[in-house]
């Protein structure tokens, strides 16, 4: 079987999990779940959006038409009803936006609206989980076709982000 998703995707998966996990780490730190380090509270919030954004850029490079016909990319938002990949595009776009907003607010030493942080946390978890779901719904590859996949991706991302 040909492997179409090559090393660009592998790096994106690492960066996506890393960025999302970093965000969750700061989120947890700000709630006192990980001790009392102010640096930990900021680091993840600074790193999350740029890392995930760069990873997403790699995704665009990996597309067969990504650089040739970039105007087609808006079509990725089309199949909300049945394509996990479309969900991923929404999740990534929203997470990067929220992440950038939070990073700017932290940099300017402003107060972070709790609601915004919560939304960011949900999006971060979704970023970790959706790729697992993406491969899990492929029934043609039995090794992927299990609920364990999203859990695996979340666990992996959290541990990477924490370190």
């Amino acid at each position, binding site marked *: 079987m040909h492997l179409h998703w090559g090393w660009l995707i592998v790096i994106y998966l690492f960066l996506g999990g890393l960025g999302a996990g970093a965000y969750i780490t700061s989120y947890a730190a700000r709630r006192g*779940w990980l*001790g009392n380090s102010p640096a930990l509270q900021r680091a993840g919030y600074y790193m999350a959006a740029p890392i995930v954004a760069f990873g997403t850029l790699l995704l665009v490079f990996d597309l*067969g038409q990504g650089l040739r016909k970039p105007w087609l990319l808006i079509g990725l938002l089309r199949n909300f*009803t*049945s394509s996990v*990949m479309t969900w991923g595009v929404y999740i990534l776009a929203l997470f990067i936006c929220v992440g950038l907003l939070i990073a700017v607010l932290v940099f300017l030493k402003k107060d972070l609206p709790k609601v915004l942080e919560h939304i960011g946390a949900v999006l971060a978890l*979704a970023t970790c989980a959706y790729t697992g779901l993406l491969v899990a719904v*492929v029934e043609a590859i039995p090794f992927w076709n299990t*609920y364990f996949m999203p859990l695996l991706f*979340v666990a992996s991302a959290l541990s990477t982000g924490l370190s």
Partner: protein
Amino acid sequence: MFHLSKLDVKLTRRTALKLGALTMAAVAVGVPMGSSKKASVKAAGAESGESKQLGFLYDQTKCINCKMCAKACKETNNWEPGAEWRKVYVAEGKKVYLSMSCNHCADPACLKVCPVRAYTKREKDGIVQHDTKKCVGCAYCLYACPYHAPQFVKSGTGAVTKCGFCAEIQDQGGKPACVSKCPVGALTYGDVTELRNTPGAVEPEICGLPPVSITHPSLVIIPKV
């Protein structure tokens, strides 16, 4: 509670419960997402009145591995180099063959996973069509299709192509190129519900093919026993 080098990690019951709840939330979001997808696609596939599902009937007992079907398809549809819309598979060490292109499944995986909705399934005859103009080349359908029907050459056009059942030719009253050119009549086509009643015909779960329950392919095979 316990010390982790410079960190004072207070892992209380409260924290553990919160983490557990968060995890459960993630699972609670993911699992229904997965099952709701299947429901919505099946609802969309509900037929009305004048529609049938076209399919291929492949007779293994007649096939001589001349590969005229593949050649005809290639010439008619101008495959890009590296793309093979129809292939004739040969069993290891046996004179048993399998000519297969796209099975225009009743529940196509390609259509389900495509983020740009490049795939559509025709109401009147169930032909699954791919619109190259919409394709962004994500290759998700290549992983999703159990029969390797979509073809993708990244260094070529970078967009997916596949068997379209010669829909344009059929619309003008003709037959698919592969069927027309088979010299022994091993490859035929028609209403798959009727084809399934052919004496000796079986579901395409032989020769290492995947379970039909995944996508319900519109393919019928008369096996060489």
